[in-house]
């Protein structure tokens, strides 16, 4: 078990507004880790700073031992990190197929590209059905699936998933989480950000709790689910 992602004491903010204070956590290869917390805690900001969409003002981020803090998003993508953002950030004027092909922008090998495309279509048969449909005209659940599919096209080692269940019907949410499990079987390490703490703690190994920009708890998911603080704040018990 070696450390894949090491976030060390990062301070992140937007302009004068500081959002994260000395946030630290590690993820080992093959793990399924969740980052839970209330609305506005800074969970998305954390993912954005790992992905290079936001540069930390202080601290380091190491991926496979290499420092990546402050690198631009495209360079972080090339290193092997995929990001499934909350808003999906799909190319709305392109078809499902074109979006997936764009996901493989950094893939040079045509054989690998075809393999990845076939994998995504097996994972999400609905995407294959709507191959030629414009991404901008798809439903919420389909967009999430397309976002995940596109994220997988570059064969990432680490996938950052931001609120995959947001705005989705329970059945669709189940499909999405089942798909994430399949990715795990493929060997992808997952960092899951979720407001739905129940679901997140059920599927993941470990969890970090982020409140008001600070990590307040860090336990195995099973233990977090039994934790009193977590129970009152998130699970409404």
């Amino acid at each position: 078990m070696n450390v894949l992602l090491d976030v060390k004491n990062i301070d992140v903010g937007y302009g004068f507004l500081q959002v994260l204070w000395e946030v630290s956590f590690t993820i080992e290869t093959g793990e399924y880790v969740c980052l839970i917390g209330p609305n506005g805690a800074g969970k998305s900001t954390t993912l954005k700073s790992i992905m290079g969409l936001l540069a930390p003002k202080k601290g380091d981020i190491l991926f496979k031992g290499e420092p990546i803090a402050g690198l631009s998003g495209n360079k972080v993508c090339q290193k092997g990190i995929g990001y499934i953002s909350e808003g999906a950030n799909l190319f709305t004027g392109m078809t499902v197929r074109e979006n997936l092909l764009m996901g493989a922008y950094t893939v040079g090998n045509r054989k690998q590209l075809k393999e990845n495309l076939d994998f995504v279509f097996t994972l999400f048969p609905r995407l294959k059905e709507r191959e030629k449909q414009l991404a901008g005209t798809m439903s919420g659940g389909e967009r999430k699936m397309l976002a995940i599919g596109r994220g997988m096209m570059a064969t990432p080692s680490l996938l950052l998933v931001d609120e995959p269940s947001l705005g989705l019907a329970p059945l669709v949410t189940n499909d999405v989480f089942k798909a994430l499990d399949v990715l795990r079987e493929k060997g992808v390490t997952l960092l899951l950000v979720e407001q739905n703490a129940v679901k997140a703690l059920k599927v993941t190994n470990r969890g970090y709790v982020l409140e008001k920009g600070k990590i307040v708890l860090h336990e195995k998911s099973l233990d977090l689910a039994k934790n009193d603080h977590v129970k009152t704040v998130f699970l409404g018990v």
Partner: protein
Amino acid sequence: MVPVHRFRSMLYGALANIRSAAGITITLTIIIAILGAIDKGSYIIVNTIVTGGMWAIMAMGLALLFGVMNVANFAHGEFFMVGALAAYFIMTFSGQYVAAHPGTWVAGAAPFLGIFGATIVGSLFGAVCEVLVFRQLRKRSREQWVMNVFILTLGISVILTNGHQLLFGTGYKGIVKYLDLPSISIFQTLISSDRIFVFLLGMAAIIVFWLFMKFSKTGRAIRAVSQDETGALMVGIDLNRIQILTLAISSALAAFSGASLLFMFPAYPTMGMAPLYNSWFVVIVVGMGNVGAAVIGGFIVALFQILTTVYFGEGWGFVVPSALIILILVIKPSGIFGSSVRGVLEQ
């Protein structure tokens, strides 16, 4: 051979498209062009096609820049001027070279050297603007972006027009013709070989541009950036590279138009004003950021300008397009071809 039922559905699809606002506009334009030609002579159609082609290319460049980088470029006419000026110098120098060394390949290649050389010079100017101007603004602040960038482009315009005047004076710098070939008669109209040459080059440029944007990896990357910048970063697209490239392509298109029309419009410092207004007319009328429609819009605006000049006189040349813009902004501000799904090539 297309099977019958396929042909029928294609026909119905075409008819449905025609019934849309875009289709009505195109059909109306073609009808008006034909009526105008019947009334005043076929040079109406010839001039529309040649000038329209160039306005189309200018508008394509402008729409591309706005669609991809949200830059409302009011120096676009100056890139047209840079192209005309560069072509003038290349043609003058090659003319002198040919006079000193008659019978060399330069004589035949000069028009191509002139136009393509000017296009390259124009693209370099554009790339420099991106690195020295737009990138610096981006580093400092994204707030009020459209307004700030627009003001910066006004500054670029001032620098380029006055630079021209300072270095080369206010005089007209033109060439008599590009090609030493006789005029051709088509439909009882005598069309100069230059006009045909430039029209063919223009059509080739539009096709090459379209193929590049639709099928090349870089072209798709540019379209991706125009649709979702964050998404583009997430899939590994280098934004800096795409931004320089977009500027280079946009200014190259303008310079290409300026160089191509040098035989009709000589170069002088403020020559960029008319092409600037024309390309903005087109872009506003068809819908900002829609590159595909800008091509069609170029012909539409050219036609209306030519008809206005022919029926009402030279001074009215800007009145009809301006009136069109007021109408469009009041009735359908997103433009005739505007749509809700974003993207530079998509409609």
